[in-house]
C-alpha cells in the first residue's frame, strides 16, 4: 500500500471519529438533561470516538512525512517530519487532536456542565480545520472561514447525533425518546439546510465557474451533493413518517434502520471529502 492511500484512509476514519466525538458532546450538552438511561452509553461513545480520533489524527500527521517523500522511508526522515509537524497543516491537526483531548477531559466525569466543556472541545476540534486548506488561503477567507465553520459544526451536530439518538430510542422510555427526537428534528430542520447553503456558497467562491465540474474536484463535489440529496430524502422520511410513527408506538426498527442508512451515507460523504481535500484543488 502506498503512503497516499493509507494516509487518505486514516484521514477519512479520523474525520468520522472527530465528528462523532464533537457531535456526541453537542448532543449531551443539548439533550443530556432529559436523559436517564442513555446518558452514560452516549458519554462512552463520545469518549471512545474522541480517543480514537486523536490517535488517528496524530497517526495521519506522522504519515505526512511518508507522503512528502512518496515512500515509507520518509517516516524516518527527521527533516520531513519537522516540515510536517511545523506546517500549518500540522498545526491544524494538532488543534483537532487537542480539541478531542478537551472532549475527553470534559466528559471524563459525568454532568451537564462537563458536557458544555466537552462541547467547547468539539468546537476547537472542528475549528482546527479552518487553519489550513483551500478556504484558509483564498482571498475571500474572511467569508469562507465562517462559512466553513458553520458547515462543519452543523455536520458535527447532525452526524454526531445519529448514534446517540439510536441509543436514546433503545434505552429511554418511549415518551422521553419521542420528546428528544421531536426536539432534535426541530433543531436539525433549521440547521441542516445551512450545510447546503454554506457548502454551495463555498464551492462557488472557491471555483468561480461551472467548468470545474468537468475536473476531478468538481466531480467529487457533485458526488458530495448527490450524497447530501439522498440524505435529505432520508431525513425528510424520518421527520415526516418514521418519527410520528415512533411517537404512536408503531415503528421503531424502521426508524433505526433509516438512521443507520443516514449514518452510512454521511460516512461516505466524509470519505469523499477526505479524498477531495487531500488530493485535489479547485483551480
Amino acid at each position, binding site marked *: 500500500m502506498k503512503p497516499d492511500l493509507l494516509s487518505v484512509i486514516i484521514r477519512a476514519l479520523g474525520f468520522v471519529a472527530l465528528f462523532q466525538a464533537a457531535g456526541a458532546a453537542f448532543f449531551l450538552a443539548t439533550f443530556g438533561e432529559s436523559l436517564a438511561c442513555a446518558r452514560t452509553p452516549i458519554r462512552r461513545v463520545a469518549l471512545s470516538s474522541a480517543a480514537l480520533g486523536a490517535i488517528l489524527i496524530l497517526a495521519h500527521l506522522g504519515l*505526512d512525512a511518508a*507522503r*512528502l*517523500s*512518496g515512500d515509507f522511508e*520518509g517516516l524516518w526522515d527527521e*527533516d*520531513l517530519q519537522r*516540515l510536517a509537524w511545523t*506546517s*500549518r*497543516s*500540522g498545526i491544524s491537526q494538532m488543534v483537532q487532536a487537542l480539541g478531542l483531548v478537551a472532549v475527553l477531559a470534559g466528559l471524563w466525569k459525568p454532568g451537564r456542565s462537563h458536557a458544555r466543556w466537552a462541547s467547547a472541545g468539539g*468546537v476547537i476540534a472542528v*475549528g482546527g480545520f*479552518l*487553519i*489550513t*486548506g*483551500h*478556504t*484558509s*488561503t*483564498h*482571498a475571500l*477567507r*474572511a467569508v*469562507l*472561514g*465562517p462559512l*466553513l*465553520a*458553520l458547515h462543519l*459544526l452543523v455536520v458535527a451536530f447532525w452526524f454526531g447525533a445519529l448514534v446517540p439518538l439510536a441509543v436514546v430510542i433503545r434505552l429511554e422510555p418511549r415518551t422521553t425518546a419521542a420528546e428528544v427526537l421531536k426536539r432534535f428534528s426541530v*433543531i436539525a430542520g*433549521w*440547521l441542516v439546510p445551512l450545510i447546503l447553503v454554506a457548502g454551495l456558497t463555498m464551492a462557488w467562491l472557491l471555483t468561480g465557474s461551472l467548468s470545474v465540474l468537468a475536473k476531478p474536484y468538481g466531480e467529487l463535489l457533485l458526488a458530495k451533493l448527490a450524497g447530501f440529496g439522498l440524505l435529505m430524502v432520508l431525513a425528510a422520511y424520518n421527520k415526516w413518517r418514521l418519527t410520528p410513527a415512533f411517537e404512536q408506538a408503531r415503528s421503531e426498527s424502521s426508524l433505526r434502520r433509516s438512521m443507520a442508512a443516514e449514518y452510512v451515507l454521511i460516512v461516505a460523504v466524509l470519505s469523499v471529502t477526505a479524498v477531495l481535500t487531500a488530493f485535489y*484543488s*479547485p*483551480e
Partner: protein
Amino acid sequence: MKRIPFFILFAGLLSAPLVALAHAHLEQSDPANDSTLTTVPDHFMLMFSESAHLTALTLQKDGDAAPQKIAGLPKEASEHFSIPAPKLTAGVYTLRFRNVATDDNHITAGTIKFTVAATARPAAPGGK
C-alpha cells in the same frame, strides 16, 4: 442557534491572519516534459507556480528496476529549483517530484518524461 455568533467569531479569528494562495503546480521544467535532448543535462530545473518545499526527486531510466533517489535537495522553500543531475546516458528517463506548498501545505506529485538522444553531447562546463 445561540452558539452561531460564537462559532462565526471563532472562525473569523482563526481565518483572519491567513494569506492567499493555492497548490504549487509545475509551471516550467528543464528538461521539458516529452522533450528529446541533444545535450546531456547536468542540472534539472523545476519552476513552480508558487513557493514550495521540494521534498522528493527520483529518476528512473526505462528498463531499470527501481528509481534512483536524488539526494541533497534544498531545505528552503522556493519557486525555482536547480538540482545537479547524475550522469546520464542515452535512453528514456522519468523524473518524479513531490512538493508541498508553503501556504496551504498541499502535496503535489508530478512526472517529467524526457529522452537523451544517442547522439547527445555532454553539457558545456558551467552550463545549466
